[in-house]
Structures are given as structure tokens and as C-alpha cells.
């Protein structure tokens, strides 16, 4: 049984593409056959985050318009032979594809893949409608900021209206130092406000910037963010995984202060 998951957020820049790349790669590490679809037509980015930008020949619009077969447009990952990318078109716009075409494309891909991950563009217009058209479930990415949470709430409403079966939350870019001193909403705060199930909490980690620079997703690495993404993948497979203690990576002085507090 294949599962089609849309990664969405409403607001831009909260980490949809990074999440898609890492969750997709993480599922491939767990021996699942995975395809990532970049649905952000006109603003293609998943290819660079995956480090596959030099291998693109055909794209999503080519497939939909029948200029090539699906298999010709799929790019195999550098590391994992069971991970593929269907890149978006860079020189077209969102109206080049419609929801019916997306549904058809996804139905065709279901036969060959365990997981189909759709990287949704920001916004709630046609690009969003295309991305959610064929999805079974959704991962809503947000950061602990008022603007991102407000947009996430709107997106959750739209996903429910479109009868997406399961909607889970990823709280991204947490800064535990700020949460501790009360200057950032905690994961619990965000969950309380949005009242949907939490599937992952990812700390703000400079390793993410480094891994994106290199075009290699960091899921599975020893970094906190890498572990957090790996846990999300296990949860997607239905395993119960306890949430990470994001406080564990404190600096020396914070630990010292902690000792004196006791």
C-alpha cells in the first residue's frame, strides 16, 4: 500500500522543502521506495536541497503534458537507489498543471512506490490545490512564530475542508534557549493552539544550513535535527517513538549553571 503525503505550511520559508528532503531520504534509509515531487512550479528548490540540480532533463510539466514518460523524468538519488525526485518546471507557472492531472500522475506512481511525498508551494492558491489534490495525509510544518502559526491554522482548515484523511504537525526551528526564558512558544503551546497531532519537533540547527549548502539531507546523522527527522520517519511508519529531549545539547556554561541550581 502506498501512501501519498503532502508537506505544506501556508507561510513560506518555514522549512517545507527541507522537511520533504529529509523525511523522504529518511524513509529511503528505512528501505522504503520513495518519490519526492516538487510541486512548486516556477520556484524549483527541492532539486538543489537534494543536490540533484545538475541531473534534470524533464520535469513535472513535461510529464503532465505528455512530452516524456514518467520514468524519464524521475531522477535517482545519489546515495539511495530507492529514492527518486520528480523536479518542478522552473520556467512555467502554477496554472500549467491542474488538480485532475496531479491526481492522475499520483495514481500512476502509486503502483511503483511505497511513499509519494509532495512538496507544496507557499500560499493557498492553485499551487496548493494541485499539491493536495491526490494526497492521503498531510504534514503541516510551522515555526513557533505568530505569522507561521496563523497561516498553519488556515491551512489546516483548508485541508480539513478538502477531506485530507490525516493531518499531523511538525514544529520546526525550535530554539530551546529562547523557549526556556519564555521568549518563544513551546511545542506544547503550538500544539494547544492548533490542536492537531504532533509528529515531530525539529530544533533550529546550524547543521541544516550546512547540509543544504552541500545538497545532502542530514537525516540519520548524529545532529539533533538529523535525529528529529529520523524519528518523524519512524512515526510515519506507525512506530511509537518518544520525543527527543531538545535540551540535551546545552553548552558547557548552561550545564554548569544547571549543576549549581540543584
Amino acid at each position, binding site marked *: 500500500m502506498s501512501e501519498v503525503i503532502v508537506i505544506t505550511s501556508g507561510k513560506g520559508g518555514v522549512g517545507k522543502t527541507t522537511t520533504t528532503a529529509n523525511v523522504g531520504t529518511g524513509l529511503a534509509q528505512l528501505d522504503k521506495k520513495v518519490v519526492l515531487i516538487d510541486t512548486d512550479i516556477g520556484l524549483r528548490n527541492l532539486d538543489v536541497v537534494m543536490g540533484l540540480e545538475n541531473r534534470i532533463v524533464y520535469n513535472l510539466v513535461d510529464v503532465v503534458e505528455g512530452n516524456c514518460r514518467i520514468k524519464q523524468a524521475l531522477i535517482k538519488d545519489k546515495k539511495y537507489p530507492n529514492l527518486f525526485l520528480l523536479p518542478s518546471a522552473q520556467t512555467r507557472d502554477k496554472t500549467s498543471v491542474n488538480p485532475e492531472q496531479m491526481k492522475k500522475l499520483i495514481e500512476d506512481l502509486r503502483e511503483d512506490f511505497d511513499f509519494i511525498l509532495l512538496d507544496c508551494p507557499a500560499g493557498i492558491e492553485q499551487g496548493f490545490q494541485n499539491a493536495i489534490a491526490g494526497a492521503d495525509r498531510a504534514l503541516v510544518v510551522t515555526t513557533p512564530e505568530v505569522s507561521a502559526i496563523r497561516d498553519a491554522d488556515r491551512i489546516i482548515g483548508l485541508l480539513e475542508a478538502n477531506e485530507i484523511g490525516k493531518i499531523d504537525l511538525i514544529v520546526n526551528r525550535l530554539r530551546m534557549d529562547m523557549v526556556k526564558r*519564555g521568549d518563544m512558544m513551546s511545542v506544547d503551546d503550538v500544539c494547544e*493552539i492548533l490542536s492537531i497531532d504532533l509528529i515531530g519537533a525539529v530544533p533550529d540547527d546550524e547543521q541544516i544550513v550546512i547540509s543544504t549548502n552541500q545538497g545532502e539531507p542530514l537525516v540519520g546523522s548524529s545532529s539533533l535535527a538529523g535525529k528529529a527527522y529520523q524519528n518523524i520517519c519512524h512515526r510515519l511508519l506507525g512506530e511509537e517513538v518518544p520525543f527527543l529531549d531538545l535540551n540535551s545539547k546545552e553548552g558547557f556554561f548552561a550545564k554548569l549553571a544547571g549543576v549549581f541550581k540543584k
Partner: protein
Amino acid sequence: MGFMDIFKKKNSGDVAKDRLKLLLVSDRADCSPDVMEAIKNDIIQVISKYMEIDAEGLDIQITQTESETSNGTVPALYANIPIKDLKHSC
């Protein structure tokens, strides 16, 4: 403001949470400020038939309240209507 008040200032995380809770209730109810203003004016008209109220001090907003029947919160229309004079009351 006293010296100690500096330390009593509400954390910005809590401020954000409180603002969001209010904001999302009105977002979800899809009530624009225009609609709220119209509701407010209608309330003033109806109540004014029976008593003299302070139209300036009238405050209405959509908030969350504990549901009496099911667990969890439900949206509620909250109105604070100060009465100036009860002489017209029945």
C-alpha cells in the same frame, strides 16, 4: 514603573500565545471587523428599546469558552454591555 516591574514583564512567548488564541478564533469564525461592527450596532438597537445603555462602552468579541455538553472549547460571542439607566426596563 518600579524597578522590580522590569522583571515582572510578561514573557513575549506568552504574549504571542494569547494574541494568537484570540486571532485564530476570529479567523476561524470568519468574522470580519465589518460584520462585528454590524452585530454590535444591531445589539445596541435591540437593547436600547428596553434600557439606556452605554453604546461607547459596549464591547463584543468572539472568544473560546468551555463547552457544557462536550469536552473542550467552543467559540462564543461575548458581549459586555454597560447599562446607564434602568428606568425603561419592564
